[in-house]
């Protein structure tokens, strides 16, 4: 088998075939490490925010990886990892529960957008 040679020693070490066999064998499901969800705290007192996930064999290594992947730019003061298996999610087929009927604008933020103007115009109305 012909091996790709390169000026880059790392490519040589990888021993990549010149003509790769294109018949790929499907991989078994979950041949990767399990995943952990990563949360970081941008500053003391702030909420922890979900920033992504990492593959890792253990929680300790998940923390080690998460620190470099999501905390290396110095924007974090705290980091959490949680096994993805431990997250309880709403069934996606039930996502219609988020739909709200339109008759309840008072429950939505937009309804309070121009409160000051509304107060002012109400006051004017009263004075008139």
């Amino acid at each position, binding site marked *: 088998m012909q091996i790709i040679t390169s000026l880059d020693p790392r490519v040589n070490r990888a021993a990549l075939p010149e003509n790769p066999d294109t018949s790929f064998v499907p991989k078994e499901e979950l041949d990767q490490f399990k995943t952990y969800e990563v949360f970081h705290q941008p500053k003391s007192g702030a909420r922890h925010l979900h920033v992504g996930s990492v593959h890792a064999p253990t929680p300790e290594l998940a923390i080690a990886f998460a620190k470099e*992947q999501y905390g290396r730019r110095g924007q974090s003061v705290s980091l959490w990892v949680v096994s993805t298996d431990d997250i309880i999610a709403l069934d996606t087929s039930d996502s219609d529960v988020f739909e709200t009927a339109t008759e309840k604008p008072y429950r939505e933020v937009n309804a309070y957008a121009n409160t000051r103007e509304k107060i002012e115009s109400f006051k004017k109305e009263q004075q008139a």
Partner: protein
Amino acid sequence: MNEALKNLLYRMADDELIIGHRNSEWTGLGPILEEDIAFSSIAQDKIVHSLALFKILESLGEPEPDTSAFMRNSLQMKCCHLVEYPIGGYDFSLIRHFLFDTAEMLRYQMLEDSSYLPLSLLAKKVRGEIKYHVFHANTWVAQLGAQGNEDSHSRMQSALNLAFPLALGIFEPSEFEKELKNDGIFGGETELQKRWLEAISITLQKATLILPQIETVVPSYGGRTGSHTDLRMLSLLSITIFHGILIVLPKQDFSH
């Protein structure tokens, strides 16, 4: 005092420069993406540590950092043999990372009290970074030693047996040891080695790996005085930037 100080700085800078480049050879080839990113980032940190040390040397009248780093011949290089070794398998690279970084962390800890201000400031500046490096190394060593399987345990043990005498070369006695100590610049290699042995023993015990008896091994000395394992590697070190990636190539590769 200047000569002793420069000798210490060159030892440290050359170690960081060479191990940084060696470890960067894993970039793109790490066992998994997450580890690739972490290990590459650690390698990059080492290069930056060496830059900081070369800058201190420049302030003492030595050449500017690029010249110091890349234009000296192998006899002038003061790195220990441990950092020169090819990366081998990931077992060897991890064990080297563990042995070297623990020594590096303890050295900087000692230097925090140095009478030479630029060194004590640098030691404080890199403290957090190196703490992470050692955490990363300890986690892997404990994982593959104690929580892996028979294969991972025996590979880590073999790598440790190979790397231990090389690692003892980090602490090769220096003719300037007494002077550095008397001037309050650095507490000395002997003291550092003592602290290092204590520190690595704790992690190795957790990892169920056995440290070879120190009396039974011959420390790999010579690097600090310019006698290196692979002269070709150091004298013909050639560094190039390829698509923003720093690549170290032995020069003979250019011939074909």
